[in-house]
């Protein structure tokens, strides 16, 4: 009789624990879904930012832009190209 009571007690405790665990897991899964949704949103935002930075980088690497910057910095296109022979002495110390 006493043995049955002990078994019942443990079954009750076990069942309770199991129920608690299930409830905890369901709650956890539900809140994890929200976290996942938040992470997905964040991922989309970061991807958009990455895309926009990539486009900025692409535009900045344009040769046309380089030419504009170079001109602003004082570089000019050579007007005339002079070819000199290797043997030709063009600067000589006295």
């Amino acid at each position: 009789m006493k043995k049955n009571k002990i078994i019942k007690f443990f079954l009750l405790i076990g069942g309770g624990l199991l129920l608690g665990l299930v409830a905890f897991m369901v709650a956890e899964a539900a809140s994890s879904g929200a976290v996942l949704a938040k992470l997905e949103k964040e991922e989309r935002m970061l991807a958009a930012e990455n895309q926009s930075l990539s486009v900025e980088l692409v535009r900045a690497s344009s040769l046309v832009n380089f030419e504009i910057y170079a001109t602003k910095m004082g570089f000019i296109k050579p007007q005339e190209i002079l070819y000199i022979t290797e043997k030709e002495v063009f600067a000589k110390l006295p």
Partner: protein
Amino acid sequence: MVRTKLVSLLFLFFFAAILGKLFTWQIIRGKDLAEQARSQYWSDKFVAAPRGSILAKDGSWLVASGEAWRVFAEIPKIKQSPKEIAEKLAPFFVEDPSDKKSLLAEIVRLTELLSKKEVVWVPLKQKVSSQSKRDIERAGIEGIGFEVQEDRVYPEGSAAAHLLGFLGKNREGANVGYFGLEGYYDMSLSGKPGFRLQEKDVFGTPILLGESTNISPVKGVDLLTNIDKTIQKILEEKLVEGINRYGASGGTGIIMDPNNGAILAMSSYPSYDPQKYYQYGDEFFKNPAVSDSFEPGSVFKVLVMAAALDAGVVEPDTRCEICDGPLKVDKFLIETWNQKYHPDSTMTEVIINSDNVGMAYVGQKMGADKLYEYLDKFGIGKPTGIDLQGEIAPPLREKGKWSVVDLATASFGQGVAVTPIQLIKAVSAIANGGKLVTPQVVDRLLGENWEDDIKPIIGPKILSDKTVEQIKAMMVEAAKNGEAKWTHLRGFKVAGKTGTAQIPIAGHYDKEKTIASFIGFVPADKPKFIMLVTLREPQSSPWASETAAPLWYSIAKNLFPYFGIRPENY
């Protein structure tokens, strides 16, 4: 007792009502409702694969994948009047908001769209920039939404538009590459879209314990081309300058490495802006370098002469026996371009003087069948195999069906049609020692974790070493002492040839309009590049020696330092 019956009847009635409703939900509308329920807790969508980029030789971008937005309106959610919304949106949708006319037209267009009460969803504008999207969002207009769209970014603007092609839409509204590289490599560039199926709760939050399928998109392949941005820029700038200077209606330039067929630059004008392709007519999209044919005129003489030398029917010092005056062939009279005749001129002099009679003599020596065989070996009449969409190959007159007139005129480049790319491919065989190479724009395909090196396609040797040396020497002399000698850059060993071709119209040749071209490679002994320049209908002079040749040299002059080409004695 009565009360019990009444309650029982009431229960029965409610039971019947519930049963009826359940029957409606489960049996009659079961399919629709199940579908609606599924759409509520299942979220499925295709995940677009980013389109691959097109890269220049140094890995910098020619075209990159970008992001744009489709602006749409959900009519039932709109709170303000259509006109109010239109006035708020229009400044973001026109190119120049200070242009009152276009702004007003846009307001009218938007008002009309927003006033459509019979529709729920209406697209208002395609490909709106991210900046404009942010600005519109800040305006906080209810009922206005955005959908992401694939866009292309062209850091160099409209440069190399014909070569690159553009990204348009097919009838179903899907992105499709048209023309140039976008068209030819459309499948590789497109990648493979992904798919995502996820179970969601009533708030749209994913259910972790639910079912889900996730197939990741595969990004499109990047194309690493042989295009050199610096060379492309020089070619583009100089070509436009030349077209304006000589009053031409258009022009084409191709620069290629004759040793492996790598296309270093390619440009044609008039051109278009691939970003706004929809603002141009179809005639702008065709790449004249691969899709337009022309009668090459005198530039073709080097191919015929090379064939004759290789066939052993003439030597450089063979003297022309019929060059003392016009040549009568059938009922036609063949004259030189300047009506000056050079009796007993050698074959080298025939090329230097660009002598039509001398070339007709060469043609007669060769015979039609032999000439046909060599032209076939040079790839005339066949597509070059360049990796660009839209290449054409005007057919060569069938073997055995050439008349004496056909043979004579073909000898100096009339009555045969070629595309610029066919011509440069054929002359490259002279430049590189006799091998026919296939022009190639793309050097490598770059995947996410792999790459595929596209090897140069070097064809069989079609000219002997002796022939190559002889024809090169002739071309060097032609550049130095021919009719374009005034523009020749002293000291540089250029092998080149001019060509002034008449334009055939309705069975005869136009008396005034010409296509002027110059083809040349440098240094002649070990060429680093070969370049073809053609000008359509130049107005300042019809002659190539006064238009295409100086333009060729003005481009080459800028390329010499870049290629490290120095004058001979330096």
